[in-house]
């Protein structure tokens, strides 16, 4: 039981950090930030790897393969697309003469 207690504590503290860390983000960064947060939940592939260590039935083979495809697509695509969005941002700023 203590393991679960620790896990729930971590969950609650991480929620608070999540609220705090997005405090004063300008409206222009909303979409990239959403995309960036979206790639972070691709951490689920770590879960897929852990589950794969114990898999030994055809059903879980199917689950693992599908989850690996979906999770990796989430994380890899997510970071690439966020980077592309932010790259666009940078050139936007340059066009404005880089003031500020």
């Amino acid at each position: 039981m203590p393991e679960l207690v620790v896990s729930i504590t971590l969950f609650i503290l991480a929620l608070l950090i999540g609220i705090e860390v997005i405090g004063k983000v300008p409206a222009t960064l909303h979409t990239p930030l959403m995309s960036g947060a979206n790639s972070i939940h691709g951490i689920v592939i770590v879960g897929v790897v852990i589950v794969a260590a114990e898999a030994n039935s055809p059903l879980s083979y199917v689950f693992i393969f599908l989850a690996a495809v979906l999770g990796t697509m989430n994380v890899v695509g997510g970071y690439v697309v966020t980077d592309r969005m932010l790259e666009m941002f940078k050139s936007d700023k340059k066009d404005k003469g880089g003031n500020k």
Partner: protein
Amino acid sequence: MTATPIDIVAWFVYVLASVMFVMGLHYMNSPKTARKGNFISAAGMVIAVAMAFIKLFVTGGYNWIAVGLLIAGIAVGAIAGVVSAKKVKMTDMPQLVSVFNTVGGGAAALVALNDILASDHTPNLVVLITAGLGVMIGSVTFTGSLIAAGKLQGIGFVKKMRLPGKSVWNVLFIVLMLASFVMLCVFPEQRLLWSVLTTVFALCYGLVFVIPIGGADMPVVISVLNACTGTAVAMSGLAIDNVALIVAGALVGAAGVTLSVLMSQAMNRPLMSVLAGGFGGSDAAA
């Protein structure tokens, strides 16, 4: 459970990755440092996944079919992810984010479902509750984000979809979904039946939740669903007792909700009225 040295190393590596995710999000608050933030967050992800693989190979006792499928799946997913992210037009990016959210929710639901179904012995109540919640939330995001992406893309039949008596359907599927979830926890011996029903009803709820919402409100909806996926991942993390999934999932969950509130404020509308839908009309889509 006694912790072996590799468990302790893995724990701290996952904590390090979580710290990098928080730093990444923090840096993304300002345009100047945003790209660096994304890079730090991606590096954290690489570290976490590498650690999971190292632990897998050091611990041993795995099945080559499972690991082969795992690696093949990661390869396919990585190629699909990079190709779609590189090819997409700048204006179509929000849809793609929604698609990525769809697949992320699906992956979280699958991990949780696997945890309920795969083991030979009946899972304990904690696993049933957390994994059940993971299945439920992940499935809702799966169909919800898919519809959201379709609406933004302006796919004809998705845009035209109407749902007469939407609140009735919403309530119906929420009740059915929660009822199956409760049955899953009460009768774990019939877990195949109840987990499949929970999944099906949650998938239906995802549809009826997003269909009535206008296309112009989709970014907010995607952000809410993004938060849902984060929560689903955290629930899967609680089910398999992994610190990286719990912390990163909770982080995205809370950040996603906060971001949704900020986004709807920027549109001068309360979040609840956006989610209630039926305003703005789907023809207002870009």
